[in-house]
């Protein structure tokens, strides 16, 4: 696996773990733990989106000239995930377990089909177009600074 693919795929899995912690806490009715875990998940997810939207995607677009291509689609999916996250926050604020479970399940599938596209298609394209640049280092620094 090449540098960008490997780094960003690992970060997807890292976000998944925070997602699962929040889901578990809600299911157990531990609302304070759930709130802390969801805040952490949201910050990791937003940090990941930000690393892509402000560094990886612009570099990819500059290298390929494709501004209406895959990065546009991925930005659109980020927006959908942000709305899903807002609905999860609302369900948590209302202490509504069922609603949270449904919204979390929806975000999980939305997020994973998005991740599949990035890991299988977009990141390998980034690796081939951005090899020899310092993009991977820049991404790594941003993701670590967030943690």
């Amino acid at each position: 696996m090449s540098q960008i693919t490997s780094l960003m795929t690992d970060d997807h899995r890292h976000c998944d773990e925070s997602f699962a912690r929040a889901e578990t806490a809600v299911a157990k009715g531990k609302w304070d733990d759930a709130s802390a875990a969801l805040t952490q998940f949201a910050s990791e997810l937003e940090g990941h989106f930000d690393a892509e939207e402000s560094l990886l995607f612009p570099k990819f677009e500059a290298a390929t000239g494709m501004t209406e291509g895959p990065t546009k689609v991925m930005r659109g999916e980020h927006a959908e995930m942000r709305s899903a996250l807002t609905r999860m926050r609302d369900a948590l604020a209302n202490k509504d377990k069922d609603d949270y479970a449904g919204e979390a399940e929806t975000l999980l599938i939305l997020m994973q089909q998005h991740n599949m596209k990035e890991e299988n298609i977009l990141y390998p394209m980034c690796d081939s177009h951005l090899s020899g640049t310092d993009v991977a280092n820049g991404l790594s620094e941003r993701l670590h600074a967030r943690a």
Partner: protein
Amino acid sequence: MIPDGQTLSYDAAPAFSTPLRFFITAPLFGAAAGAALLAAPELLDSRWTPGALAVTHLVAVGFMLTVMLGALFQILPVVAGAVIPRSGPVATVVHLAMTIGALCLAWGLGSGSHAFLAPATVLLGGGLALFVVAAFLGLRRIPVAQATPRDLRIALLGFAVAVALGITLALALGGRLDLPLLTVLKLHIGWALLGGSGVLLAAASWVVVPMFQITPNYPAALARFWAMGTGAVLLVWSATVYGELGSAEFALSAVLAALCALFAVNTLKLQRQSRRSVPDMTTRAFEIGMGSFIAGLVCVLVAQQSEQQVWPLLAGILILHGGFVSVIVGMLYKIIPFLAWLHLTQDVGKAPNMKKLQPDSPIRRHLALHAAALAALLVAASVGNAWLIRLAGLLVVAEFAFLFANIIKVLGNYRRAHAG
């Protein structure tokens, strides 16, 4: 060449009706298999009765292959970036061909009217060939570096070999070819269940299990080499079957069974390490499936060394109904509500969440009924009592009717949300 980025777009994804038509008709074939057991319990006397052959193909082609093809129309763009050209019309033709073909095949095998086998071979052979060609056209520019896109290709080839062998068998049964039937039959089963279905399940599992059940990844060597290794052993096994090299054939069967068990055990092990502590119905369905595969593989090996008719029956029930039907049902319960959600979000801008579109409790009841049907089938096949077989048949009808009703309910929720 790198695929055009537009393939990632939802716009490039097929219409809801494209995979859905496959998912709606499939449970009806499962119910038909149950009805056949209810009407003619004597068909479980041995694997060779015409009725047993018909029931096997109602499940394997009418249910399993149909759902797999429908799902492939949806997942090829997502996991491999492959866009199937003209997927709407292609899906219509493939679905019609598979559906009518499966009916002709089951009727032809069950009733002994070989006249039905000719249209069955043309429809199933033609339908699958059209799909495989369209899928390879979609995949032709996709790099083969990742495990899933590469293994999907192997599975497509496996299905093509299985159907070609099936057509050969149908021609032989119709008296048009003079062939050693048992040899071709063994090859047909091996390629259909392992080269096609087994490899496809593994290819899907490499991504589905870690991502949706939040588990560690499969061991890298397993994901990288399992499908290719299994395919290679299957080829050598085929040569020993063709050459009638009895002991070498058994040894290679054992190697194949060990490879399948390795996949099933690793899947169960990963699921135990899932970060999700909330009970997930798809995970439960996978657990039933993997447990059944392991038990079924033991029966396959015993069947090769035993003259008793019951072992191949138990192997077939465990692998088809316990193994593949379970995991397919588990995945359908994720795919259909998600597609309903996705298309609603695209069409009207908002959608009820997935658990409102498809609540957990009917899935839980359906899985319980499915497990009861599996247990009843195993007991009925072991004991051979006609009334027990009828009861098992009734449970099979009920479980597939329940699955059908659950799918229709999601569509009802989809329509209401679309209208409101």
